[in-house]
C-alpha cells in the first residue's frame, strides 16, 4: 500500500544546489496544503563529497525514502545518479544532468570517470524512464550556470503532484531578486526538455 503521494531522492555534489530543490518543493507543498517531509546527508558537502536529499510529498511517516521506493530520482551529476540508483522504483523516473563533476580521484589520475553512456545504460534497466539533459548548458543559456539546479527543477515539475504555479511561487521566495529572471528562464528550459 502506498504510504506517500510522491517520493523523490535528489542527489548531487556539494555546491550544486540539491537542498534548494527540496526547499522549493517543501514550500510549494506547504502552500498546497499537503504534508511534506525531507531529510538529507550534507555533512561533507563543502569538502567535495556527495549530497543526498529525501523528499516525500503527502506523507505523514518518516522522511526517508526506502530502497526501490523513489518515484523520481533527480541527479545533478551523472555519476551520483548511478551511485544512488538503489533508491529508484522499477516504475520510477530518473532525471539526470549529463555534465560530470570530476572528483579529485579522477583529476589526479587515480581513478577513471566512465563515459556518460556507461552510466545511463544501467539506469535504463532499473526504471521506466531516463531523461538525460545537459542542464548546465541550458542554465548557461538562461544566463547563469549556477541555475542548473533550477533547470532540473523545471524538468521535475511535471513529475510531482504540485502545480507549476506554486513551484514558481516558492522558487521566487528562495532566489535572490537579481537572479529571478535567469531562474524563470532556466525553469522553462528544463520543463521544455521533458515535454
Amino acid at each position, binding site marked *: 500500500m502506498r504510504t506517500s503521494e510522491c517520493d523523490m531522492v535528489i542527489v548531487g555534489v556539494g555546491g550544486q544546489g540539491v537542498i534548494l530543490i527540496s526547499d522549493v518543493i517543501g514550500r510549494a507543498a506547504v502552500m498546497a496544503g499537503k504534508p511534506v*517531509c525531507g*531529510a538529507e546527508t550534507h*555533512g*561533507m558537502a563543502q569538502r567535495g563529497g556527495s549530497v543526498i536529499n529525501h523528499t516525500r510529498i503527502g506523507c505523514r*511517516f518518516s522522511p526517508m525514502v526506502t*530502497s*526501490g521506493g523513489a518515484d523520481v530520482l533527480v541527479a545533478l551529476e551523472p555519476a*551520483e545518479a548511478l551511485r544512488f540508483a538503489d533508491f529508484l522504483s522499477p516504475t520510477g523516473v530518473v532525471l539526470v544532468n549529463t555534465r560530470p563533476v570530476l572528483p579529485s580521484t579522477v583529476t589526479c589520475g587515480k*581513478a577513471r570517470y566512465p563515459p556518460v553512456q556507461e552510466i545511463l545504460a544501467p539506469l535504463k534497466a532499473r526504471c521506466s524512464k531516463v531523461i538525460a539533459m545537459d542542464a548546465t548548458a541550458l542554465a548557461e543559456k538562461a544566463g547563469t550556470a549556477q541555475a542548473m539546479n533550477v533547470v532540473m527543477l523545471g524538468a521535475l515539475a511535471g513529475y510531482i503532484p504540485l502545480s507549476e504555479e506554486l513551484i514558481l511561487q516558492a522558487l521566487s521566495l528562495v532566489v535572490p531578486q537579481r537572479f529571478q529572471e535567469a531562474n524563470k528562464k532556466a525553469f522553462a528550459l528544463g520543463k521544455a526538455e521533458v515535454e
Partner: protein
Amino acid sequence: MGLVAGYPGTPSSEIIETLVELKSERPPHVEWSVNEKVALEVAAGASWTDCRAAATMKHVGLNVAADPFMTLAYLGVGAGLVVICADDPYCHSSQNEQDSRRYAQFAGIPCLDPANPGEAKEMTVFAFELSEKFNIPVMLRPTTRVSHAREDVDMGQAAAPCGPGRFIKNPARRVALPSHARPLHSELLAKQAAMEEALESAPWNRLDLHGNVGIIASGIAGLYAKEAIFDLDEELSFLCIGAYPLPKKLISRMLMHVSRVIVIEELEPVVEEQVKMLALKVNPHVEILGKEGFIPREGELDYLQVRNAIARMLGKAERVAAKNADVSCLPPRPPSLCAGCSHRATYYAMRKVFGKNAIYPSDIGCYTMAMGMGTVDTCLCMGASITLASGIRLGGEKEGICCSLGDSTFLHGGMTGLLNAAYNKARITVTILDNSTTAMTGHQPNPGTGMTASGEVTTQVSIEALAKALGAGLVETVDPYHLDETLESFQRAKDYPGLSVIIARQPCVIKARRSGIRRRSFQVGEDCIGCKICLDFSCPAIEFEKDKARINALCTGCGVCAAICSTSAIREVAR
C-alpha cells in the same frame, strides 16, 4: 528561554546558529561555549538564577559534560534546564554511535526522544515544564534523521522571555557536599516513580490495543513501524515510546494484551530490557522479539528493516531490497581537504621534517581527512592528540612524536593536555593548525577569533601566550603557505629538547573566500617533466593531463605547489 550555550558538533550545531538569528524584543543570551562541560555549567548557573536555560551538544559532547550532568540530577534546577544532546546512529559524522538514552537513565533524569521536527518542537516546550515540575534537568535527544529533517511544523506562539533573574542562596541544594549529596540522592530516587507516572500520559507515549500481536517502538523507529503497519494492513497493537522513564503501566497493558511483541529501537536495547523485566512480572509467557535476531544493535534502522522484521514476526513475505546497482565503474568521491587548505601544507612540511617513522597523533577536525598524508596516526576524542602523544612518549616510544589539532579543538580540550605534557616532561611537538574557525562543523567562531556567537567583538585570546603560559618551552608561529619558513620551524621543534609548540596559522580557505580574500593565480609551464611530485601533494586543484600537471579553477593561489615543484615549472601568472 533566557540562555542557550553549546559547543558545535554534527548534528547539533544548527540549534545555536538558528537561535542567534532569532529576532525578538528580548532575545536570549546565546553563546558558543569553549566546550560542552562549560556549556552545561553555564546553563546550570542561569537555571539557578531563575532563567530558563538549555545546553546543546552532540552525543560525544555529553561525555565531556558528564561530570556536571551526573551531579546536576542531584542538585536540581531553578528555572527549567534542558540538555539537548543530538545522537548520531551510523556515525554519519562522529567517532562513535553511543546511545544517550543510556546517559539519561544513568543520571536518573527524563529523556524525550523525538521522531520528527514537529515532535522536537513540542517536546522542547514540554521539557522546560517537566524540568520545573520535578526540579530536574531534562534531556532532549534528537537523532541525525530528526536533526537534519525538514517538515511542515506549526510554530505556535513563543513563550514570553523570562525576567531578570536572581540567584537565591540555598547551600543544601547547591553545594554538593557528601552530607548534602546523600539526601539529594534519596530525593532523586524518590522522584523516579512520580516522573514515570507523569510520563504515562505524555502525548508521545501512546498505546493502541488491537490484535494479540504487538509492536513497541521508540523515536524515529516508531514512524517506520507506523508506516509498516499501514503498508502491511494488519490489526496490530502498537505502543509508541517518546518519553523516559518508560511508561510501565502502558507497557504492562500491552504485555497483558498480546502473546507476541517486537521491540523496535535504534542502537541500545533500552526499551527492550525494561520490557523483558516487566514481562517477568506481568506476563512471563509473552514472546518478546528484539535485538536478538530481529533488530540490529548498531547503525541506523531504515523502513525496510523495520517492515521486514514485523513481516517476519507475522510470518508474512519480506520485501526484498532493490538489487544493488553495479557502481564499480564509478570513481570514488571521498570528501577531502579543500584546494589550498593550509592543513595540507602544514602536514606536508611536518612529514618532510619528522619523516615516515615518526608518530603522528591527530585529533578531531577537517584535518582528520588528511589521513592519506601519513600524519594522522590516531583520532580518539577532542584534545586527545596531545595526551596520547604524551603517553606514547612516556610509554617508551623513541621516534619523533609530532601531534596536531585545530585551534578550536585545542581551546576545547587540548589546553589541559598541553599543561600536563609540560608538567610531566613529555618531549613532544604539538602543532596547532590554526585556521581561525571551527571549520568542520560549519565555521563557528571560538575564543581565538575575537568574535562571539552573535557576531559581537570580544577578547581574542592569544594561542601563543596560552601555549607559553601552559609551559611549552619553544613556541613558534608559522604561515604554512611559506614552505621554507615552516620547514625550518618544524626542524627547530624536532631538535628542541623539551615540549615544543608550532602554531600554523592561515585562515580556512572557505572562510577566506567568503570574506573576499583573492590570492595569486598559478599555472604549469611547458617545462613540466611529469614527475607527479605535485600530485602527491593531493590538492584537488592539481590535475594530470597528457603527462603534465595542470592547475584547474579550484586553485585558491596558496602557492605551495610552486614551492614543491621539482623543476619550478609551476609559476605565478603575471596579472
